[in-house]
């Protein structure tokens, strides 16, 4: 390869002059770099809960996720970071097939949840989403009472047999979400009347009320003030005991605080994965380093 390249270079020197030739090669090199870029670090874990292999996502012709392979371990918090538009949300939404709602979206590759390929034609998204819950960027409680918000999932999935069990599930979920003490005396009031941070915790309670195995969080704190953010972060650390959590965040301190592993995405590629402390102290890929040192974002 190298000698051939040299020949081309020489010829170009002749044809278009040295500077232009160098620029052309630099462009080409970047392109090669992109095509052949492989993930730095170890994307696989010993005890995976979800296994993603060679996942590609297209919005129409736009290639939004490029050949991403990664595992999500049991009871770990995996943080996904990267500049805006790099495909973090897109990838996250593949994990519970929320992308199905986007007509132009096409997913190839394999995503396994406990050995079940969730993109298999026979898989029903309804039970899948009961197993892989989701918390969104903007708190989105239903315009119903606090109780009904949390009770909705268990009710539609038939997880409870009677009112007492339902009450227990609601109380338990609100307690796990750290919201019980604040709302126990006004469960019948609308969830939309809570503060932003409380709403987001309500949404977390709603997600865990169906006892999912994995919880996906897409920038759950980006609409919250610092105090509410701290509460939600504490909550994530506690939830880790029972759940596997994948969290997208723009906030690198947050990723450092709550996650065990961090994945860095860049323009649809998974550039680097590794233990969080290693990624932040000793990034191996130039792009990762540039990003976490704040050179671009």
């Amino acid at each position, binding site marked *: 390869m190298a000698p051939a390249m040299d020949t081309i270079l020489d010829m170009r020197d002749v044809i278009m002059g040295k500077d232009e030739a160098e620029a052309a090669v630099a462009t080409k090199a970047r392109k090669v770099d992109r095509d052949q870029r492989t993930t730095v670090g170890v994307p696989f874990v010993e005890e995976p809960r979800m296994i993603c292999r060679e996942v590609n996502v297209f919005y129409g012709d736009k290639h939004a996720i490029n050949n991403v392979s990664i595992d999500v371990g049991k009871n770990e918090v995996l943080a996904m970071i990267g500049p805006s538009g790099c495909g973090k949300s897109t990838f996250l939404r593949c994990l*519970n097939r*929320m992308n199905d*709602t986007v*007509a132009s979206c096409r997913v190839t590759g394999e995503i396994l949840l406990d050995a079940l390929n969730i993109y298999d034609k026979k898989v029903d*998204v*309804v*039970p*899948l*989403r*009961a197993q892989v*819950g*989701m*918390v*969104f960027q*903007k708190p*989105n*409680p*239903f*315009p119903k009472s606090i109780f009904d918000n949390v009770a*909705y*999932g268990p009710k*539609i*999935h038939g997880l409870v047999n009677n009112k007492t069990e339902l009450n227990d599930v609601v109380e338990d979920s609100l307690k796990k979400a750290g919201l019980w003490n604040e709302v126990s005396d006004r469960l019948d009031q609308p969830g*939309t009347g809570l503060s932003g941070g409380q709403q987001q915790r309500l*949404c977390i309670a*709603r*997600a865990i*009320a*169906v006892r999912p195995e994995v919880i996906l969080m897409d920038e759950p704190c980006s609409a919250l003030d610092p105090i509410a953010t701290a509460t939600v972060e504490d909550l994530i650390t506690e939830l880790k005991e029972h759940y596997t959590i994948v969290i997208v965040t723009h906030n690198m301190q947050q990723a450092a605080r709550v996650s065990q592993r961090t994945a860095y995405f860049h323009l649809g590629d998974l550039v680097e994965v590794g233990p969080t402390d290693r990624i932040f102290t000793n990034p191996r890929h130039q792009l990762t380093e540039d990003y976490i040192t704040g050179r671009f974002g």
Partner: protein
Amino acid sequence: MSENHQISTMDRVSVGLAARYRKERRFRLFGISAIVASLLFLALLLASITAKGYTAFRQTEVLLDVYLDPAVLDVHNLATANYAALVRDAALALFSQVESRQDKRIIGKLISTGAAYRLQDLVTSKPELIGSTRPIWVPADDEVDMFVKGHIPRDVPEAERRVSDKQASWIDQLVAADRLKLKFNTAFFQAGDSREPELAGIRGAAAGSMFTLAITLLLSFPVGVAAAVYLEEFAPKNRWTDLIEVNINNLAAIPSIVFGLLGLAVFLNFMNLPRSASLVGGLVLTLMTLPTIIIASRASLKSVPPSIREAALGVGASKMQTISHHILPLAMPGMMTGAIIGMARALGETAPLLMIGMVAFIVDVPNSFSDPATVLPVQIFLWADSPERAFVERTSAAIMILLLLLLAMNAAAVFLRNKFERRW
């Protein structure tokens, strides 16, 4: 330098500022004058209708002492007895001094032909009264009514008015004897149409409107909402659904008379449904209202924030559950508003109903969806077309009733919207 520059910036801004505020004031002035103008026109319309129409709610009645003559009233044959003769005799008894046959005939005509019906009703319900003399208030003829209400002025030459001096003096006699009064016009609210203005009422048209609207609402709301939900939530987005969408928008703009012609061709000529029936009227108005309801429903489905949809799907609700538990309740106020506005339009619709024969002269109040009927706006059209002076005030009164109904429906729309509107 920098200070100079700043000062000149401020100066320039303040020069521009004055112009900006002037523009704003001018715009406000335009807005206010537009609103004032439209309010004035509205007030003018309402005032003129009310001024012309309010007298129709009272009707001149005459107190007659009717001798229920057993010779005329055969207990076994009450339906065919000559009640009119009894009424005329009672009327003549009030004017004992009148001798000539012609005057007697004119006196008979002071009383409405409806008096005989009122007498018949009384005797049929209480046959034991036969043989006695009963004081009964009966409606006066429409010309007497107009004269009493001042619509036929006294101060014009006798030849130019429809009530002669002689009749006027008789009316004055009756008033002096306390036998002629303006009473609440029950016939207007209880009767169907009639050739005699004093007997004509809006009950028939109101019932027809009610039946027609009931059919329209029952058909167009569920069908419209279902179509909107399917198009908005389930249908694939392709050329066919685009075509359907364009066509629905076009249908909403089609002149209503075209729907009337369609109804005539399909419902009457092809399906042989009864002519003039409110059933067919309802079907035609359904065709006309459907596009409106579909468009309003789609808009209100679209306005449900996607975050709610995602929230429901995210906890594992199926598509149908997401729609029925979350989307529909949130979209319902908008859909109902659309439906009520569509209904209000249907309530005021005339042209398509003319096409399917709901313009016929119908005296009986309809009792079912298949009875021949007319509707309020068509009734207004018919009365406005009648030559009798007394129909003028009845036309205005019917318009008042129609406007009241429309107002009530719009109030209901606002009420429903406020009641069910939720914040998110």
